[in-house]
């Protein structure tokens, strides 16, 4: 089958399963990369009426708390060299963003991959890596800790968030699980959540494939996990990467923007001398808790509302003047909706 025939075949099956289920079904895609593909290809618009697809909290930039951003901005303001991934630079802190500090001091560095920080450390021995993201990026941060590079960790774990969402006030019938996170953790951690789940890749065909499999599982009342991305995801995940995480991080309770504190969902640097939160405690101890804003990023991350329902969307909040992380990050729902003219 060529791709066109595959897509047609998926759509035919999706329609058939949806009519056999005969009720409203809510599916949630967890990953921001999936949201991007879903909106870009208009996948929501081609689903049957009784199938609702909502976005979850899978954008690493979006779930990082305002307090963590304010702390790292404070470090940068005090001249500590900071390196982190692209969109994190633009998220507005209480006073300013990392991007604005970079424009002034040149001591904030955008990296595509953590390995670039090793090169930067030769020039800036005190560099701090602001580690964000899920199980996908955390092993690279562990690699930096192995190289004795100081880290401010805002890393989060996906399965505890899924568990919370599955038992929360939102009735989710099935999850489209993140592809790249699964390359690290494998399939087992998802199996504790008794709800249909499919691990998906990042093409439109793979997303449709996962929706098709999910609807079949829901129809047959099978709360199991299916690896819909076997091209990349192994059953066991990446054991070496997990060992690295275990060696350098402690699992802690962690606050997610919009979701609150989720038990055992964060990774904290074990070694206090390499933990920027300890090393620069005096610099960040007076950072105030986040102010309440009318921005409804939190509800968007929980799948309770769509970006278009936020009072700031497209008014005070645009990609040029973002009020919240969901509009800053390329993987944030608001930015994706805006980009594709929703």
């Amino acid at each position: 089958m060529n791709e066109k025939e595959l897509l047609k075949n998926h759509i035919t099956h999706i329609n058939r399963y949806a009519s056999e289920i005969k009720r409203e079904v809510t599916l949630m895609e967890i990953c921001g990369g999936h949201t991007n593909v879903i909106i870009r290809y208009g996948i929501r618009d081609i689903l049957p009426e009784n199938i609702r697809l909502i976005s979850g909290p899978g954008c690493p930039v979006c779930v990082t708390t305002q307090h963590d951003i304010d702390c790292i901005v404070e470090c940068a303001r005090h001249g500590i060299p900071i390196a982190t991934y692209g969109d994190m630079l633009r998220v507005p802190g209480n006073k300013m963003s990392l991007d604005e500090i970079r424009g002034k001091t040149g001591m904030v560095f955008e990296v595509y991959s953590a390995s670039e920080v090793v090169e930067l450390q030769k020039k800036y021995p005190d560099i701090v890596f602001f580690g964000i993201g899920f199980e996908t990026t955390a092993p690279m941060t562990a690699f930096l800790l192995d190289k004795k590079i100081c880290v401010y960790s805002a890393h989060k774990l996906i399965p505890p968030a899924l568990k919370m969402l599955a038992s929360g006030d939102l009735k989710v019938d099935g999850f489209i699980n993140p592809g790249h996170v699964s390359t690290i953790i494998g399939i087992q951690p998802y199996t504790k959540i008794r709800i249909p789940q499919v691990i998906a890749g990042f093409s439109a065909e793979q997303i449709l494939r996962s929706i098709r499999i999910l609807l079949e599982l829901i129809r047959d009342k099978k709360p199991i996990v299916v690896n819909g991305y076997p091209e990349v995801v192994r059953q066991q995940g990446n054991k070496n990467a997990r060992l690295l995480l275990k060696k350098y991080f402690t699992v802690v309770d962690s606050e997610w923007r919009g979701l609150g504190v989720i038990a055992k969902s964060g990774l904290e640097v074990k070694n206090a001398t390499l933990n920027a939160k300890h090393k620069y405690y005096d610099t960040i101890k007076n950072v105030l808790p986040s102010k309440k804003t009318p921005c409804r990023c939190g509800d968007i991350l929980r799948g309770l509302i769509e970006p278009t329902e936020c009072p700031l969307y497209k008014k005070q909040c645009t990609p040029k003047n973002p009020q919240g992380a969901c509009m800053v990050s390329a993987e944030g729902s608001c930015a994706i909706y805006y980009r594709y003219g929703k």
Partner: protein
Amino acid sequence: MNDDVVTLAEGSGGREMHELIRSYGFSYRGKWKNYDTDAASFDLDMSRSLVFTTDSFIVDPIFFPGGDIGHLAFCGTINDLAVLGAQPIGVSLGIVLEEGFPKKDLKKIISTIKRLSGKTKIPVVTGDTKVMQKGTIDKIVINSAGVGLVKKKEMLIKKINPGDKIIISGGLGEHAVALLSKRFQYKTTIVSDSKPIFEEIRSVLPLIKVAKDPTRGGLASSLHEVAQRYKVGMVLDEERIPVKPGVKKVSELLGVNVYELACEGRFVCVASEKNASRVEKKLQDFNSDAAICGRITKGSHIIIQSILGTRILPMPSGRIVPRIC
């Protein structure tokens, strides 16, 4: 956001860059004409115009599969002349180096430019070199200007109309993917598409109306520029847009939109419905991936049609940032 300082997004070839350039507001042009393209023209006599362009080049890494910064500078400059239909006659070479830059790397870059100059018979006629203190510049920046000649009647600024066809000269995004793969240490057979395009353009010159090289901001930015200039809309057939499987895979892996990725040896052009097939066939002699992939419409939107329905192709905004989830 703070509007007092320049941001990297304002140099990424998308919406922010166009807004920044518009804000310069240079209105006095003397006898020069500028058609909102990357080059300006000056009438030499009743039948011929001189075309003039300038471009600056920064790239990381400076050596990549399929080329280096010298390759980019030479090709990028002459390609900006070629898309107006001009025959390049000479280029300048301004090099700014960081103190401590390895001489062997400089030699390699210069020999690339010499080789291309010899091959294309386009001389480097003037230049300048500066060295800046270590840490004040990132390795090397090249600025290159170029001049070319064009017969007025062949200048690629002809009116385009609904029903005209859009043709792409080869696969998209290969240059950007070669760069990204090097940066992420991916194993891929994709190499940069960086090359001169004036011979390809010359082969179809009488048959096409407009051409644009999709560099920064990729196809999306180029098509939006053309659509705004001529106040038209476009419909693209996704199945016919040439993208190599390796480019598609890397884009999906990194979460970047292939239509926003830079090419350095491709062009997109518009031809009447009558001439489009001939243009496609001639371009396929240079690159088998060349294809008619869309048409000009009324309106102002650029729409992509695929089996999943239609969607809008937005003007790129911000910087290309690989996904981290």
